[in-house]
């Protein structure tokens, strides 16, 4: 169940960018993995506490997505959706192979002792790290939600999402808004990376896997439903846990995908789908 909360964090960036810009960022998982690697190296080289390295890693991931938008995406923003999809896919391939070249295919796990310390709640053991991740994930969702609702920039982003032309007429610089939104997407991905590294591991191959999972969760929650992500994440987490318990751990991924296909067939707008 807590794991479901983590899923929500891993997919927040992708869901946000898709909901706002209608761009699926295929490089989302790679940004996330990037921040995981950074947290890992900060810990290994300088003994940084992973929680302190979290903002640093997130900002670097945001920088990477800022650059990708400025250099590539901005130029083809108005062309068909297909192009941005292939473009971000290309960026993802580039990044994952760059990691492979620089840091080899080894899996890296950020091990911190006090994180793994178990806590007991009425007979259930939960590691401290899982609770922290869940809390961060929850705060992230709420913060994003209120940022979109209550701040001026947030409102500008939402208006741009609904109607670009009207936003331009209202004096909003939509180019800037897009750049900002994409960077925020990178920042959110960057929050997930170090936590992923702590709870399991990061490797060059993890990124694409995360992207797929994030997309499945986004569809499950309903595009544009940020708060639905937590619930959808929990459903996925519970379903996977049950698959592991009752069927086999090797079929764990199958549950999410089957659920995804069923949702596409039965309720394409997702479980909690409505517009932002």
């Amino acid at each position, binding site marked *: 169940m807590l794991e479901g909360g983590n899923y929500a964090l891993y997919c927040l960036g992708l869901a946000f960018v*898709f909901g706002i810009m*209608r761009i*699926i960022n*295929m490089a989302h998982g790679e940004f996330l993995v990037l921040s995981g690697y950074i947290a890992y190296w900060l810990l290994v080289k300088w003994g940084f506490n992973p929680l302190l390295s979290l903002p640093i890693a997130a900002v670097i991931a945001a920088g990477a997505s800022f650059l990708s938008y400025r250099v*590539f995406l901005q*130029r*083809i923003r108005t*062309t*068909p*959706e*297909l*192009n941005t*999809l*292939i*473009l971000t*896919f*290309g*960026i*993802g*391939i*580039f*990044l*994952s*192979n*760059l*990691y*492979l*070249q*620089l840091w*080899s*295919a080894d899996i890296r796990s950020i091990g911190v002792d006090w994180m793994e310390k178990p806590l007991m709640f009425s007979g259930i053991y939960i590691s401290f790290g899982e609770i922290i991740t869940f809390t961060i994930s929850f705060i992230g969702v709420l913060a994003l939600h209120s940022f979109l609702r209550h701040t001026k920039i947030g409102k500008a982003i939402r208006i741009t999402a609904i109607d670009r032309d009207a936003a331009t007429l209202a004096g909003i610089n939509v180019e800037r808004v897009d750049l900002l939104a994409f960077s925020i997407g990178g920042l959110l991905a960057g929050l997930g990376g170090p936590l992923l590294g702590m709870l399991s591991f990061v490797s060059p191959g993890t990124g*694409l*896997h995360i*992207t*797929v999972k994030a*997309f*499945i969760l986004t*569809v499950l929650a309903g595009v544009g439903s940020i708060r639905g992500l937590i619930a959808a994440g929990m459903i996925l987490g519970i379903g996977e846990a049950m698959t592991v318990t009752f069927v*086999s751990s*090797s*079929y764990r*991924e*199958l549950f999410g*995908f089957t659920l*995804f*296909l069923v949702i*596409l*067939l039965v309720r*394409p707008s997702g479980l909690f789908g409505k517009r932002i």
Partner: protein
Amino acid sequence: MKSFLPLQVSEKKIAIITLVVVLALPFVLSFNPYYLSIFISALILGSVSLAWNLLAGVCGQVSFGHAAFFGIGAYASALLVMKATWNPFLAMVGAGVLGVLGALIIGIPAFRLRGPYFALSILGFAEVMKLLTLNLTRLTEGSKGIFNIPSLPLIKLGGMTFDFYISRTTNYYLAAVLMFAIYLSIYLIRHSNIGLAMSAVHGDEETASGIGVPVFKTKVIALMVSAFCTALMGAFYAHYIHFLNPDSAFDGFWSVMPIVGSLFGGIGTLIGPSIGALVITGLDEFLFKRFFETGHKLFFGLLLAVVIVWAPVGLLGKWVRKR
């Protein structure tokens, strides 16, 4: 768009030139087995790129998971021959049919929605197929893989014997024949009514459905044809390489490279993707791998990004006259 070459060559002429080059290549390479094996995989890749391009370039539906069909085809053909003792040629067709089945499983739910849903669903589909192959150990031997997959049988045609077990050259020419057969089928489809429908769907789905094009059906048909060709090549791969495991048959390579080849060669043309795939394989083998041994694929990502932003019509797109 201004072309950088003054002349415009027709699609047909380029196809013929490609055919001549492909047929002559083994002589140029003086039948060196190592180079031949590189270009056999290039031809397989070229065929898959053609199939991918029918879906993406003609019908406008990007797929990030063609490895699913490739792997289905490879495993289906290998298993049909080894467990059900089918004739390998028949098994290759059977593999294609199973590929079509896979296309239906993923296409029907995913094409109900517009936008990126299909592209990502099929990526997940490829992952799930790999997972199933890994875990259905009684059928597929799981991660151990299948060894000793039989070659295609001897063909005696007049006085000539085609031996697929010993001769690389024979395999090379069969791959070439398959590639051009796929090209011709796609050419014919493109210039038929259903091809026009695909093109209309690519242009503007709403307008297309407004003038009575069955959008959903058209997309599914494009996917079915594409999946059939891809699975067929997967089957050929299985009999050529004699060994399969989930990592090789469902390798992301088979999903990524057709995209790179198609974009590089020219997504708007029909023959371009195969040329792109041939050139890219050559570049990869003789150039990229010299730079970065482990991460050489990063060039493909970079190439994708650069082509789509600065040269969306691709290498050939600029000087191929659409016909």
